[in-house]
């Protein structure tokens, strides 16, 4: 039984790790869910097996160890809450960029573009913020040059809606 649980936990960990390394937030969320399940399962296997730990269910020696179960109940609730938050974040990202891909760090891009020596990078950052079309064209060129997978930046970000306030 423990071997089976350990194997299940290992499988969850490996699948979770694979998914967390993806670029889409939705996959990362599923991956994190699997990882959490793996860790919780590992904790459950730590306790002694036996009858349900209820008063009168049996002799004290035959009962299972209730502590890991109690602790994991807490951990499950926590991961539920955080997953809900992450889903909201993914939705927000989709509203802003039509995608839930984790975006490139602008400073990384900054350095990458600065290396070509074409643009003062501080200026670049600001103009990227202002959605300068001229810059975007050159950014497209750079994207092709450097094979960057940048999400489109042609639309200004939406203002926060009333519900988000």
């Amino acid at each position, binding site marked *: 039984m423990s071997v089976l649980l350990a194997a299940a936990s290992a499988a969850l960990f490996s699948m979770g790790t694979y998914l967390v390394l993806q670029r889409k937030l939705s996959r990362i969320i599923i991956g994190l869910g699997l990882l959490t399940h793996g860790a919780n399962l590992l904790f459950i296997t730590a306790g002694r097996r036996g009858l349900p730990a209820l008063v009168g269910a049996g002799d004290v020696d035959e009962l299972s160890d209730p502590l890991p179960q109690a602790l994991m109940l807490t951990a499950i609730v926590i991961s539920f809450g955080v997953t809900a938050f992450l889903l909201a974040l993914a939705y927000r990202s989709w509203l802003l960029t039509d995608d839930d891909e*984790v975006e490139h760090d602008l400073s990384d891009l900054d350095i990458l573009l600065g290396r070509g020596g074409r643009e003062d990078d501080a200026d670049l950052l600001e103009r990227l913020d202002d959605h300068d079309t001229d810059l975007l064209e050159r950014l497209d060129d750079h994207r092709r040059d450097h094979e960057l997978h940048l999400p489109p930046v042609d639309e200004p970000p939406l203002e926060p809606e009333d519900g988000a306030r």
Partner: protein
Amino acid sequence: MNALVVVPVVVPLLAAALCMLVGRSRIAQRAVSITALTASSAASVAVLVAVDRDGTLVVDAGGWGAPLGIVLVADRLAAIMLAIATVTLLLVLLYAIGQPGAERNHVGFQSSYMVLSAGVALSFLTGDLFTMFVGFEMMLTASYVLMTLGGTRDQVRSGMTYVVISLVASVLFVTALALIYTAAGTVNLADLSERIPLLDEGVQRAIALLLLVVFGLKAAVFPLFFWLPDSYPTAPSPVTAIFAGLLTKVGVYALLRTQLLLFPPETRPDTILLWIAGLTMVIGVLGAVAQKDMKRILSFHIVSQIGYMVMGLALFTVAGVAAAIYFIVHQVVVKTALFLTGGLVEHVGGSSRLNRVGGLLGSAPVVAVLFLIPALSLAGFPPMSGFVGKFALLDAGVGDASYWVVAAAVVAAFLTLFSMTKIWAGVFWSPKEREPVGDAQPVGRLGGPALMVLPTAALVVITILLGVFAGPVYDVVTRAATGLLDPAIYRAEVLGS
């Protein structure tokens, strides 16, 4: 006296709920949260005084005794951290109220801030590893909300990195807990300090290293710091200030607590920690030197200064640990003050990029002074707290004959000074090269709204006081370090045998 120990955890939590209920009235929300944090800082300071005089206070939550139930333990280290954290939280709350922006525009700000306060307090006070996990999660979940308030594109991007990396650390934490429970059959720290030395040496080392990775991620040590300089600067300035001042230090606190308490001298990862310390200092500060934005420079400094704290821990001597504790206290104050000044610069200058603000020495001299003092303190100038902390660390390093880490610390200190002069020259001395994108607000006599300037000034005064009264403060941290290096004392106090 024991009842006071639970105040910093329970009162902010109740306040968080109340803030939700009175969400329609901003004034009521503010009254509730200021009252709650005033109460919890007063209680924390009282606890610190009592603990330093009479010894550790232990509270059994729910009336269940030590190894089985949840215990809150206020020993000297926990009390020191708690006192400085709650006072800082209160001052930053006042600043947030004074600043137009985050606090005014979002109903959830106060509640999240209260949960964050309770989580920080619980992480310091807890006597078992699982409750520490819960405290961390309370603090982190609140920090996710605070970081992404506003939901701008930049915040969503950096928020994703921050949330995912924190969650991965949490999963590793649960995994470490599972392995510890399997091996030792308990999660109570006092109980573990008795049982872990009995385990197989390989298992001990594995647990020590796993905990090092978990808390190293939270504390942002090399090579696990990459998420921090990217995510912190996007949040509103009071939020960044409290993250910079407190969150990473909670990770360092957990490192101190677990490595000192749980593992016998043979299985402590001291060499690894020393390497991590040296590399964190130097690489963090090199990152800072390369940046062109005030907030990003300061964010890299968070990383660099964490190296100094880890160095003190890695020596595993009373002098080293005492210096580390003093340095943590100094950093909480100074880092928060610097980020609050960063917020003031943005307020009066319209930007925090070095080439878009300038000449603030003339237009906002108060802000310049408020930056200069903590900046010099960070770089280690007497008579500020940074000098005392760095001197004590170097002294401890030389005493332990770890000369190369001392050399790294000195190099990092010089580079710190260099990047501070970069901010000074860019923001305060030179004229601005380009117009800022944001709106510059009228400066006023104080250099900003009084509620923003006065809390910052209070923190600046604290860093000077920590330097001037270094003697008495240092006595307290030395007593704390002496207690920490002997797990038997902690065990006797908690388990009562």
